[in-house]
């Protein structure tokens, strides 16, 4: 049964040092405020999972929260590279960052296997690429009926799955719409889950294209208006494209980044917006 907590409590209770944590969001509804709260609480040695690590993961990596990243595309969408991510991989700053790298199709299937209670998923993927040579998490598998050779990837089952949604009701049922990516799978694959929402409402009225997660499939819900900024929340606010642009020079420079971290996250009562 989902409990309604405030963000600080929720992160304190659900996210522990050394955990595998997935903050999912595919361009839309990225749980940025939750990521900042993890930084603020000084979590360490996390294995971060996400198909598309972008700015908030760059910030968490730069803040030293992560020892490993499981991902399929790491960039600042529409702008360029993630410099904290690069610095961690190329120079082990502030701490070394191990990576486990997949394609989107592979990651999506790893989450789906995790959500399905299966140890692995099968796909047509990675064929002829150099990716399987770099990880133990891509293996061939043979169809027991046709003998055809396909690819297997192991399930991903995070300790904590964190997503942002538009709304929840007071019982903790969660509703999101628009592009909902792999968020249902991320929650269902995780042992514990936290959903930050734009607002808690009396009743979840039907919305075309909405995905509803029943309260008994979620550990905690926290009301965090604008909790996906600088990404967007359909029906609530638009993407802050300037923020993505402005991140580039901050992320490029260790000193500017440290400063940003102090004033905008660690020193802030709440997330940098």
């Amino acid at each position: 049964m989902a409990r309604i907590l405030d963000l600080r409590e929720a992160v304190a209770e659900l996210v522990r040092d050394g955990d595998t944590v997935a903050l999912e969001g595919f361009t839309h509804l990225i749980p940025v405020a939750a990521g900042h709260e993890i930084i603020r609480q000084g979590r360490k040695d996390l294995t971060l999972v996400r198909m598309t690590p972008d700015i908030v993961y760059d910030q968490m990596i730069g803040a030293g929260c992560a020892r490993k990243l499981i991902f399929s595309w790491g960039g600042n969408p529409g702008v360029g590279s993630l410099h904290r991510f690069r610095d961690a991989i190329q120079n082990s700053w502030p701490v070394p960052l191990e990576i486990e790298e997949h394609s989107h199709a592979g990651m999506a299937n790893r989450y789906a296997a995790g959500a399905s209670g299966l140890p692995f998923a099968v796909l047509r993927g990675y064929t002829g690429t150099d990716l399987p040579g770099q990880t133990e998490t891509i293996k061939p598998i043979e169809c027991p009926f046709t003998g055809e050779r396909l690819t297997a990837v192991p399930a991903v089952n995070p300790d904590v799955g964190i997503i942002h949604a538009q709304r929840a009701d007071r019982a903790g049922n969660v509703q999101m719409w628009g592009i909902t990516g792999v968020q249902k799978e991320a929650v269902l694959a995780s042992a514990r889950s936290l959903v930050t929402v734009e607002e808690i409402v009396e009743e979840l009225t039907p919305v075309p294209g909405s995905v509803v997660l029943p309260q008994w499939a979620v550990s905690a819900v926290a009301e965090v208006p604008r909790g996906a900024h600088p990404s967007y929340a359909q029906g609530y606010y638009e993407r802050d494209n300037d923020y993505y642009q402005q991140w580039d020079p901050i992320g490029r420079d260790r000193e500017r980044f440290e400063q940003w971290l102090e004033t905008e996250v660690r020193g802030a009562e709440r997330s940098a917006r």
Partner: protein
Amino acid sequence: MSQEFTSDEMMTVGAARSLENEAKCFVGIGLPSTAANLARRTHAPDLVLIYESGTLGAKPDRLPLSIGDGVLADTADSVVSVPEIFNYWLQPGRIDIGFLGGAQVDRFGNINTTVIGGDYRNPKVRLPGAGGAPEIAASCREVLIVMRMSPRSFVDRVDFVTSLGYGTGKGDRDELGLRGRGPVKVITDLGVLRPDPETCELTLTELSPGSTVEQAREAVGWELKIADDLGRQDPPSEKELEVLRALKATV
């Protein structure tokens, strides 16, 4: 009456022209998205745009800012989950055309978006990674590559094969059991390369309006072959330029 235009504009127009009406097109953000939206506003009004964020048949009235822009969900025929877009729509070969770019492309159309230099664990430059590209390259009926030409990016052999083109040459894709044909065109600022029918080696088949064979040769890190019947791209039409610039102004 010809107009001034940039090489990026030519490249976008060239890419747009490659998209047939009613084709189902898997679109990435940036130039591919601009080209697809240009095509939809000119010769291919029924082009079906599919973005990996799960939007099928998006009809954006402005250029989307990301592959997950809300305008895509608002205008799509259907929005599906990310596992579904890859499993039910891309993997079975339902998509006609996939658009790819990268940091490096090689003689056989293999693409690198992973690491440059050094080795994988200790690279000189760490790139964003694979995203949807390996399976787009494998499963779309045809692949279009769009990249500016330079010796650093058009290399004899990519440092890392993120997405397979023709591997080490003709026959590799068949041997691996891939269903899609692979890259049928590489559209660049200097012209268009196509795989040689005999060897699958990328060969210059068209020059862009202002460029020369020498420029193209200098911009490629292998000894570039030139097609016997080397053509030249038509410059952007007034209509194409007008629509393209209006589109760009929506961002």
